[in-house]
């Protein structure tokens, strides 16, 4: 027995393989018993019983459930810090009023259009245009995308043209659309419709192509075809992509509003942006940003709700 207790409990390391000391070669050291036969025989007499291998608690590699309160407050913390910084910066004079209006000014501007009833009127007009346009564009994009995704012929007919037109920034089509549809509501809805058709097309094409072929094959074997196959298997499987597309369509519609509401209207958030620019009203410019941010929040909540309602099978399989 030549081993010292210190070497007995030496942790397994590369060193001990490269330059084996008599202790490291002893079958009682760090190696589990089955490995003994594969190592050079030791000349050291083996008398001591094998020491119990050191056990340790496994490192936890999973994720622990997070408390909802903590999660919500962390979510709210960054916007809150920004808000406080804005308020403090304008108050202390670090941010001059000509650069960025103070929260107080913005709230005052908000109260102003609230009192005249314009806030409600503007939001209603903008949401109506965006809603109609997105509904139109999403339907068209969905039909084209699913058609292209399902059949090779559909893809050959639709895809090249869609890829070409997609490269055109839709705001560049404003003059053309005005000459086609006039400057009234039709032009505005059509512009937003065209703008949101493309993301929907791209994502529904992708979603349909990514549906598990094996599941589709199974469904065919069990007699599903045509509309049944599409509505019960293909579209539900493509739903995550479709909802991602809806998110993008809503964002695009807000951009479209800016372009559409520059002409032929005296209502809408885009018109408010135009007013702020013309009269150089800092408070209204910032108010527009705040309104857009609020819209973004509303859209996000909307999509989250839709996701929860339309994809109940995914509640149990969140990747996080």
């Amino acid at each position, binding site marked *: 027995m030549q081993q010292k207790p210190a070497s007995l409990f030496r942790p397994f390391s590369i060193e001990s393989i490269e330059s084996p000391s008599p202790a490291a070669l002893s079958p009682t050291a760090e190696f589990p018993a089955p490995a003994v036969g594969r190592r050079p025989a030791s000349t050291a007499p083996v008398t001591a019983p094998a020491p119990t291998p050191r056990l340790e608690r496994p490192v936890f590699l999973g994720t622990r459930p997070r408390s909802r309160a903590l999660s919500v407050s962390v979510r709210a913390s960054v916007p809150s810090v920004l808000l406080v910084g804005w308020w403090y910066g304008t108050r202390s004079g670090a941010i001059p009023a000509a650069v960025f209006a103070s929260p107080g000014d913005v709230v005052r501007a908000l109260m102003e259009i609230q009192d005249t009833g314009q806030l409600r009127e503007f939001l209603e007009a903008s949401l109506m245009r965006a809603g109609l346009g997105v509904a139109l564009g999403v339907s068209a994009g969905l039909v084209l995308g699913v058609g292209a995704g399902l059949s090779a012929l559909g893809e050959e007919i639709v895809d090249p043209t869609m890829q070409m037109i997609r490269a055109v920034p839709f705001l560049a089509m404003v003059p053309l659309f005005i000459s086609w549809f006039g400057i009234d509501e039709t032009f505005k809805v059509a512009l937003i419709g065209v703008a949101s058709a493309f993301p929907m097309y791209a994502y529904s094409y992708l979603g349909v192509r990514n549906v*598990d072929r094996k599941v589709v094959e199974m469904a065919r*074997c069990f007699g*599903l075809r045509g509309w049944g196959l599409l509505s019960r298997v293909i579209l539900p499987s493509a739903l995550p992509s479709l909802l991602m597309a809806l998110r993008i369509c809503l964002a695009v519609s807000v951009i479209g509003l800016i372009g559409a509401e520059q002409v032929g209207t005296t209502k809408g958030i885009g018109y408010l942006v135009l007013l702020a620019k013309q009269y150089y009203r800092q408070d209204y410019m910032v108010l527009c940003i705040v309104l857009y941010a609020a819209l973004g929040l509303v859209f996000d909540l909307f999509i989250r709700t839709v996701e929860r309602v339309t994809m109940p099978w995914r509640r149990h399989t969140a990747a996080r």
Partner: protein
Amino acid sequence: MMQPSPEVASHDRARSEGDDLAIRISGVSKRFGAKVILDRIDLEIRRGQFVVLLGPSGTGKTTLLRILAGLEEADQGVVLVPRVRTIVYQEPRLVQSMRVAANVAIGQPRTQATRDAALRALSEVGLQDHARAWPATLSGGEAQRVALARALVRSPDLLLLDEPFASLDALTRLQMQDLVVRLVAVHRPAALLVTHDPDEALCLADRILILRSGSFALDLRITASRQHDRNDAEFLRTRRLLLETLGVLPPAVGR
């Protein structure tokens, strides 16, 4: 054991010309590029027979099964199968957006009768309590039992099983094998199971086919009653024969 029982004889939905064949194929060939996968295969399988198709990977077992399911086309030859035939794949292949009961009833009219039948099929595989669960919440073995219920709920005349136990753990596999044997005995479809496991073949089959280089190298009737004693001399002899035919064991010298 291969005599048709009265129960089978009365079950004549897909009978043709008075016999009770569930599969009749003759002269079936299939090639992929230059490689001949199936070379003028003939095969007849009777109703109620449990046939296991054994062979190493890439010998055309699954291709033959997919031809019978209508998922591939034979290059030549005649393929005759009953109209009501179902399949269990290696993976469960459940539609994630449908609850378990709806998955079992897939492709059937959405009536109360269908729902009842789906629930009965689920209780046959011991999953009656999971009817309203989402597929994503099931374990691998449970999901595969749902796939089995889905295949049985239509009372198929031909049940195709494409390595249905391959992705299961060993213990679940044993339970599933028992379950399949029991359910096939009750429903009496012709069952054709593809596997590369000789022991599985021996435990399940009335008849074992080995496919090698495009044709059947062995067509073995298991005459003894199905036995689970893996140390039985007969079992070991048959097992050895299978392994030799598969080219895994060299032929025993001086046996």
